[in-house]
């Protein structure tokens, strides 16, 4: 492993935090404390941790929708409390309780989200365009799943990023399933990154997307390349989805339930288990350090839950909301 100890610690810590936040969100959804849908990230958190952990606050992140991006955002260094509140419809939410789960964190360069699959390629093209011209070395982390690669938007976004050599990391979290549909049936090539290859975009395939360290080794040089004007990279991390597409839905392959043996095999590839084994085997972290990381993450999750629960639901008047539909007229334009 080429990662230094601070990288390793950061990745491991973010992985534990993401895992605990994800499990908390799952249980809160089951308790009826979340509004809208919840698309659990469980089992597939390693890609988001690797994608987010090496971004600066000034970089632009478009999170994957699974886990509603908590993994990616907390790894970027964003305090996700306002997002947990947002998902409960609270006024302290990052979008004042108006977005639920198609949210934005403009203060931390996370914005433009909607429910349309592949929509990430739309604003990310403009983020990349602006980042290149801003001259501050910003990069754009554009995260999406295998399903998004079926959209025309993905082709167009990849095309323009290649034409203009935009500082974008196209980050495909390929868990092999879009709702029920299997990628092998929906896509003709073995790797989705073949599409990027066809458009002259350098690509990296991470076969073990359950291993956060392996993905990070692909992400770090891609970010460096983008930051130094080297243009886009396409990273494809092959990962697993432990749960159903969204809570309450059936968990099928095609149109039949996934086999019990599949779940058992998947659990062996739990990203937390994989990472823990590695840091212990290679003596990168001690058991007591690991315990500390777990305890601290649990405290952080408890605090976020308390913040969300204690925040009020507000009911602004229709007239007040209508006044917020258009931005105020700019004054002082010469």
């Amino acid at each position, binding site marked *: 492993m080429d990662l230094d100890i601070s990288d390793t610690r950061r990745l491991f810590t973010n992985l534990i935090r993401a895992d605990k936040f994800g499990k908390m969100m799952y249980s809160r959804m089951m308790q009826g404390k979340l509004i809208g849908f919840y698309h659990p990230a469980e089992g597939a958190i390693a890609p988001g941790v690797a994608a987010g952990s090496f971004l600066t606050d000034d970089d*632009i992140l478009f999170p994957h929708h699974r886990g509603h991006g908590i993994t990616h955002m907390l790894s970027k260094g964003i305090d996700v409390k306002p997002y947990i509140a947002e998902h409960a419809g609270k006024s302290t*939410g*990052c*979008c*004042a309780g*108006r*977005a639920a789960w*198609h*949210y*934005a964190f*403009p*203060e931390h360069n996370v*914005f*433009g989200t*909607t429910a*349309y699959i592949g*929509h990430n*390629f*739309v*604003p*990310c*093209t*403009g*983020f*990349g*365009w*602006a*980042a290149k*011209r*801003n001259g501050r070395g910003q990069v754009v982390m554009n995260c999406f799943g295998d399903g998004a690669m079926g959209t*025309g*938007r993905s*082709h*167009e*976004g990849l*095309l*323009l990023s290649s*034409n203009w050599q935009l500082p974008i990391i196209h980050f495909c979290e390929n868990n092999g399933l879009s709702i029920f549909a299997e990628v092998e049936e929906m896509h003709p090539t073995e790797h989705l990154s073949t599409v990027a290859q066809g458009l002259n975009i350098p690509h990296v395939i991470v076969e073990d997307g359950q291993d956060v360290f392996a993905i990070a080794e692909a992400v770090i040089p891609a970010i460096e390349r983008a930051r130094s004007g080297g243009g886009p990279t396409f990273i494809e991390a092959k990962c697993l989805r432990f749960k159903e597409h969204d809570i309450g839905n059936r968990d099928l392959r095609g149109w039949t339930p996934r086999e019990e043996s599949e779940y058992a095999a998947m659990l062996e590839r739990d990203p937390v288990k994989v990472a823990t084994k590695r840091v212990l085997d290679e003596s990168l972290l001690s058991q007591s350090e690991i315990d500390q990381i777990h305890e601290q993450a649990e405290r952080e999750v408890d605090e976020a839950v308390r913040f969300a629960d204690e925040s009020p639901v507000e009911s602004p008047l229709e007239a007040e*909301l209508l006044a*917020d*539909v*258009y*931005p*105020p*007229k*700019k004054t002082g*334009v*010469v």
Partner: protein
Amino acid sequence: MRELAFVNAIREAIQQEMRRDEKVFVVGQDVRGGVYPHTLNLVDEFGPERIVDTPISESAMHGTAFGSALLGYRPIVDFMFASTAMTVFTETAVMTGQQYFLHGSKRPAPLVMTGAWGIGKRTANDHAMPIHGYYSRAPGLRVVIPSTPYDAKGIFTAAIRDDSPVMIPWCTGVMMLKGPVPEESYELPLDKASIKREGSDVTVLANSEQLQFALKVADKLSGEISMEVIDPISFSPIDMETILNSLEKTNRLVIVDEDWEMGGFAATVAARVVDEAFDLLDAPVKRVCFPNMPIPGGFMEDYLRPNPEKIERAVRDVCA
């Protein structure tokens, strides 16, 4: 005052705003070559970094504008033909219109979307169709149509400076219309209708080429029927105040719009007038619109679309 053609008034607004603010740029297909003259030769002054051509990738082309607007740029995305914007309706209407409010009214997306439409040029549905009816139902967008050269410059200038996403579908029927345009920059309000001719017997709302038709009818009928002709300019939101003030005087209303009759501007204004000012009406509200059918490309559009004869008939009907 110096006269300019409508399309060159747009060009001057874009040029002056690009000189004033380096965050303003144009993105579209063949805007460097200037398929329409409003971007003709601008690349010579501003270069291909600010007059930006894309492949035929409307989604990413619009995304260039939308994403960079969220990061503080002020793009104009040119769809060439207005209805091309509808190939990416989700992007242009839903994502662009709603993100500001839904995301807590924190980060505006100040972009201008534009494209040409106009029935009566034998171009058939796809090149001719009006889109303001579709887009005016998208919350968060401003939908504005200037109809004179003077208004074109003032509206484009204001739209580029405004923090809202603004859709400006302009009509090819007035593209070469000439009129006085000041050389210096100026803004016109994006949300106000404009009274183009004062009158006392009947209020006629009309935009684009239909505005020219309505003004011709007003000339023809002067001495017999006094028409007040109002250009709505803003299709979302609608300036009801100007319309209702006019109705206080005339008590009669004809709404002319090349858009389909079903569910568009004319239908909305008619409903609001009935709702808010029923007692002002001395006659039924008449709408002169395109019938609910595809816009044919041949000669049939001449008698299907609104025209001076239909406007005159509607005016005479409500004044009878």
